[in-house]
């Protein structure tokens, strides 16, 4: 098991180097000059050139890449061009916000998907199935930013139950922080549950058709037992893969949710970085996302045997 984990982590190294290489050069292919953006419209061209040189952007790209890679290997992701803060510090503070929202949301969405997807499969073709599938399709069709604004309007503006803007870090005041996070978490939970419900239902339908489920029923087991002991573990494995992919995707990509709810998370950091051509921040964010993908996929692979005995870690 340990050797498998080490082997997987070692295999991730070339992946991350390729990601780093692609990220570095792709970011620089986008037109736009951070020095120009920082000094604003109307700035003197000589001032822009001076800042360009100060930021080291006048050096050949391969020299910039070598310098950056050397620093990354030593654990230094550089400093933000716009704020001057270390990128690693920015990533850690922003990851706290995004991490809390994503983990809770995906966790809740998974629970909803397991329950709704299994029940829909169990009552396939019935009213319950129709209701669950219609709900899931509706969720898939609704953009997350629109849903977020709707929840903001209802629970923030109309009912005055929840705050609409602002954020308090978890480390400062967990209860107040939670109040600010309820709406983003609800939005993301609903948005992500649609696809997970469909996947869970589809897998559960396949499993319900199998002989051992018929056999379990023939033995006289209660439906609840059949579903929980025989259907769920076997139907959940594909959904778990999707949960892993969803986690990886969301860690780097809830910029829309973060913008609507003014959360200082990773997604907003990356979008701001792209818009201001803050190369170190964009590189740091993308590299971080790649690492998260690798780790999440590894964790999912390690969890797989728990649900599907046919699969072994080796």
């Amino acid at each position, binding site marked *: 098991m340990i050797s498998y984990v080490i082997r997987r982590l070692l295999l991730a190294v070339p992946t991350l180097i390729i990601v780093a290489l692609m990220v570095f050069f792709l970011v620089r292919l986008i037109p736009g000059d951070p020095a120009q953006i920082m000094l604003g*419209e109307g700035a003197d061209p000589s001032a822009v050139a001076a800042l360009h040189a100060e930021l080291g952007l006048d050096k050949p790209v391969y020299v910039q890449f070598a310098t950056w890679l050397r620093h990354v290997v030593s654990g230094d992701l550089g400093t933000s061009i716009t704020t001057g803060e270390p990128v690693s510090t920015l990533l850690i503070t922003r990851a706290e916000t995004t991490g809390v929202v994503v983990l809770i949301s995906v966790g809740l969405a998974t629970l909803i998907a397991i329950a709704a997807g299994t029940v829909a499969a169990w009552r396939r073709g019935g009213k319950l199935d129709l209701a669950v599938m219609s709900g899931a399709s509706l969720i898939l069709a609704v953009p997350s930013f629109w849903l977020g604004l709707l929840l903001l309007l209802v629970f923030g503006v109309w009912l005055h139950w929840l705050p609409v803007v602002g954020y308090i870090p978890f480390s400062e005041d967990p209860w107040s922080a939670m109040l600010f996070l309820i709406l983003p978490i609800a939005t993301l939970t609903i948005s992500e549950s649609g696809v997970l419900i469909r996947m869970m239902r589809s897998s559960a339908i396949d499993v319900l058709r199998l002989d051992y489920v018929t056999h379990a029923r023939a033995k006289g087991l209660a439906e609840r037992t059949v579903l929980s002991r025989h259907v769920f573990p076997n139907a959940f494995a594909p959904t778990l893969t999707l949960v892993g992919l969803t986690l990886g995707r969301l860690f780097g990509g809830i910029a829309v949710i973060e913008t609507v709810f003014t959360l200082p998370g990773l997604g907003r950091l990356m979008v701001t970085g792209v818009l201001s051509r803050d190369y170190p921040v964009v590189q740091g964010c993308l590299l971080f996302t790649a690492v998260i993908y690798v780790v999440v996929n590894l964790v999912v692979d390690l969890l797989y045997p728990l649900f599907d005995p046919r699969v072994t870690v080796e």
Partner: protein
Amino acid sequence: MRKTIAGLILIAAGVGLGLALVHPKAPPTGSMLRARLNADIASSDPGMKRDANTDAVLLHVVEGLVALREDGSVGPMLASGWTVSPDGRTYRFALRRGIRFHNGAPLSSADVKWSLDRYLAPDSHWRCKSDLSAKGIAAVTVINTPDPDTVDIVLDRPAPLFLATLARLDCGGTGITHRASVGPDGTWLYPIGTGPFRWGEWRHNQYVDLVKYDGYRPLPGGTDGNAGGKHALVERVRFSVIPDGSAASAALLRGSLDVLDALAPNELGTIAGAPGIMQDSAMSADFYGILLQTGAPVLRDVRLRRALSLSLDVAALTRVVTHGTGVPDSSPIPAANAFYGAAERVLVKRDLATARALVKASGYRGEPIELMTSHSPPEMYDAAILVQAMARDAGINIQIVSLDWATQFARYSSGDYQATMFGFSARMDASQMFGVLIGDRATDPRKVWNSPQAIDLLHQSVVTGDRAQRQQIFDQLDAHFRSEVPAIVLYNTRRVTALRTPVTGYRSWSAQTQRLWNVGLGNSR
């Protein structure tokens, strides 16, 4: 089933009641005025790494020797007055007595010299360094401090716009800061100024807090641009970073914001008529329009540029794009500017017959003309769509290229476009407004108008102090602009600010910055 529904309703009501009773951690003690920024500030160093948000926030903390008044003229701030030598090269400023920095240190001429030397240092990124250099309006040659209350600034040549340059918002008002604002190694820490608010806390991408400065010595009078009497009427000001316009509107309606400045035209409908919300607005000294590369193959012919201008119904376009808040304009001098006279007031009317005739005369055969635009602000994209449709009526084939702002800005800066939608933020002097267009394209590709006559007239406008003479120069420039059409001005915007009813004393102004001094909360939180 009924029991289940009743149970769910009960749970929802309980949760709602609980949430309604529990409020997030209270803000720091005392009254707090909450305003919105659509993006984080670029730095806390006035006039260095900056944008309009940065200028607006920092001008609550720092003050310069002089400041812009409401009407665009220059008034005293840290200087009680000034004299100019007969040769127009030496400005002597007398400092106001009793002014103290936020750290308690008294203001002296040495502090002024330290700040100005820092702005003009070779490695400084101060926005206005080039304006106060040999290639700008005049170079600062010497700064003398004959006594602690007097500063002499000597220029290499007379410069009637010197004071106006010092007062410019994008120069950070040439704010005077205490030397403790920088660390021992010379790195910038935070601004220790003399303004009505002192620097509180900056949480990147979340908020900037400013705290009332109890030791502030206000000038007499009320709000007058960035000059005049300033009084901090609240204990704390919080500028919250809320990028999304809809979220900002929701925050205002919910009561999480007191001041929502620069309300987007498409958000007006949400706010208008909402209970507990009022509006304040002022015409902005900006302009939005189309910049044309007069050297580009198709647009080289002035007849085609005129045809494009005549094909546009500027009044209708402005009405649609700004939701009725903007003012159509054909002059680079905005309607809110003091030099917006009879000549500038004349609007270019749509004349399709003449436009078609000019198109024909120019030999244009429908070659596509690329019009670059972005969604920053969103109205720019809408305007591009309307320009495309209107130009088509005159037989001009516009193709829209929509880019993100940074890419559009990069292409604008390098002159890599045929035509581009573009907006220039408020500049209070008419020379500055023409200055964004006029210049030598060979050395500065951003400039679209490099006619020697225009360059000469712009130079005259900068070295002439007499108001009547300047008006004449601007009238000539305006006429010349309409004849050569290096750009097409479309409209000036109206800056609309939405306020919650407890807010008192807020005044919008043409310089497009929010001023939260002299602004109070009726029932102090």
